């Protein structure tokens, strides 16, 4: 729905020459396929898009300002809200950054639990992607199927930390509580349940001729452009670069697990979709391995409530489902960070949208936008 009301065009008089003209369409802030409150200003020639200008900031919640006025522990709940679709990963990034800053050793069991949670959340996040992507292309039913599986992951999280969306599970130096005793068996059950489900999604979408027609060769993003635009995560891998921070700059316990990095070939919408589908399988593999090798021991290093990291700076990045999530922390030795810069994947990925969307139809921009898997709090913060 257009929110800003359009001007009434002048009535056509007889002597006026008829000519075609470009017209501007306002997509958003409330539009079913902008996945939140993003506004895209489309300059169109008929159905063809000449220019896209994203207008963001409708969800700018000044989290970086808040971070300067909260202690390191208190800020954990805000990381949940930066990326609510995969808040475990956002928690994880903050933990990794602060631990790097203060040089905290995390117990191995806690690292394993973090990996399990982060990977389960990656699956959940990709399921949300699948759901909304299918809806963007007009297929409603896969949405319901993806959410059916997501509910099971949410159940696992709820069992562990009591929340369904913003988990606040990780702590600086470990995790908040150990998993309940049924967790391991339930999660194993879930993993074996997931593989055939992913095959089912592929059956309903991947080889569907209409789906192929809507995604193959649409919204090309070549690798040099992707790197220059700082695109990361599945869009970057979809463009053909075998790059995954979990493998290439391992953090937490990721170096102990065996998994593949799926990549695409052309950098089109279909490749980005396929990379995510494959990542779900790989994440399930990591979860299975981590459950097998889950060590006994403590779950939290000793970190005082009035935690004062040494003066200094830290830059840490992790591979979140949407791409690279990084925190740049400046500490002045007090309980509150001096400055926190949050680098989120969606912010940079959305910036590449105008390049990818130019020249395609209005229906394609919906598919391209969906394939980037943007969530707006990550863009606006």
């Amino acid at each position, binding site marked *: 729905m257009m929110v800003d009301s359009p001007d009434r065009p002048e009535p056509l008089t007889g002597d006026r020459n008829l000519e075609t003209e470009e017209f501007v369409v306002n997509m958003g802030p409330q539009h079913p396929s902008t996945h939140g409150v993003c506004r895209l200003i489309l300059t169109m020639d008929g159905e063809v898009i000449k220019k896209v200008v994203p207008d*963001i*900031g409708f969800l*700018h919640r*000044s989290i*970086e*300002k808040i971070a*300067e*006025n*909260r*202690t390191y*522990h*208190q800020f954990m709940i805000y990381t949940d809200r930066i990326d609510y679709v995969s808040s475990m990963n956002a928690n994880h990034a903050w933990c990794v950054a602060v631990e*790097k*800053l203060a040089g905290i050793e995390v117990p191995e069991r806690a690292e394993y639990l973090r990996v399990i949670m982060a990977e389960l959340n990656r699956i959940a996040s990709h399921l949300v992607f699948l759901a909304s992507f299918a809806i963007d292309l007009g297929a409603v039913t896969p949405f319901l199927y993806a959410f059916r599986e997501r509910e099971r992951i949410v159940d696992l999280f709820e069992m562990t930390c009591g929340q369904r969306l913003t988990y606040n599970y990780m702590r600086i130096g470990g995790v908040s509580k150990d998993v309940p005793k049924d967790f391991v068996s339930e999660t194993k059950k879930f993993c074996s349940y997931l593989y055939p489900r992913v095959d089912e999604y592929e059956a309903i979408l991947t080889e569907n001729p209409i789906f192929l027609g809507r995604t193959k060769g649409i919204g090309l993003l070549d690798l*040099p452009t992707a*790197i*220059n*635009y*700082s695109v*990361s995560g599945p869009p970057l891998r979809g463009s053909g*670069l075998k*790059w995954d921070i979990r493998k*290439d700059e391992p953090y937490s316990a990721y170096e102990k697990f065996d998994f593949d990095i799926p990549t695409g070939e052309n950098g089109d919408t279909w490749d980005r979709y396929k990379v995510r589908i494959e990542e779900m399988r790989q994440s399930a593999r990591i979860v299975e391995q981590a459950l097998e090798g889950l060590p006994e021991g403590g779950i939290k290093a000793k970190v005082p*409530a*009035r935690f004062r990291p040494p003066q*200094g*700076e*830290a*830059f*840490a*990045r992790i591979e979140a489902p949407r791409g*690279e999530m*990084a925190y*740049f922390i*400046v500490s002045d030795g*007090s*309980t*509150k960070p001096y*400055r926190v*810069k949050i*680098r989120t994947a969606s*912010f*940079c990925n959305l*910036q590449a949208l105008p390049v990818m969307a130019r020249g395609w139809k209005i229906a394609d921009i919906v598919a391209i936008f969906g394939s980037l898997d943007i969530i707006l709090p990550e863009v*606006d913060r």
Partner: protein
Amino acid sequence: MTPEELTSKIKATFAEKVEELPAVTGIPAFKVKPEHLEEVCTTLVSDPELNFDNLPCLGGIDYPETNEIGVVYCLFSFAKRHHLNLRVIMPRDNPEVISVSKFWVAADWFERETAELFGIKFKDHPDPRPLLLIEEWDEGYPMRRDWEGKDFIRMPETGQEK
């Protein structure tokens, strides 16, 4: 390149144009004067051994005590797999620095955000419109540490801060 090699390489290449800072968790960090930034960045991008093709992060930082304001550039090279941290420190009254979006397009939005929230002017920026705040914003630069707005409520002390 390992961080040590990178440090010596950069020192050798730029000599007195850069000033070494304490490393950011293993990443070499350097301070660059605003007037040298363009030249340094050109070399960083074009030198085949350095080859910094990616800009993962760019942000402002404010130091009201020393009346300075800075921009932090986190650079990365996919080709060579090394990191670098650059910093530009300017006086707080009229901070102005060259835009690096011609080297890395990703800097475009980062710089717009920094310009809007910190009041740093980026010269030659291709699209210097505000990015995040409400269209009628007239209350200054909210991310500066001493900023106070008319609608801004500070959190009461909880006792955990001390």
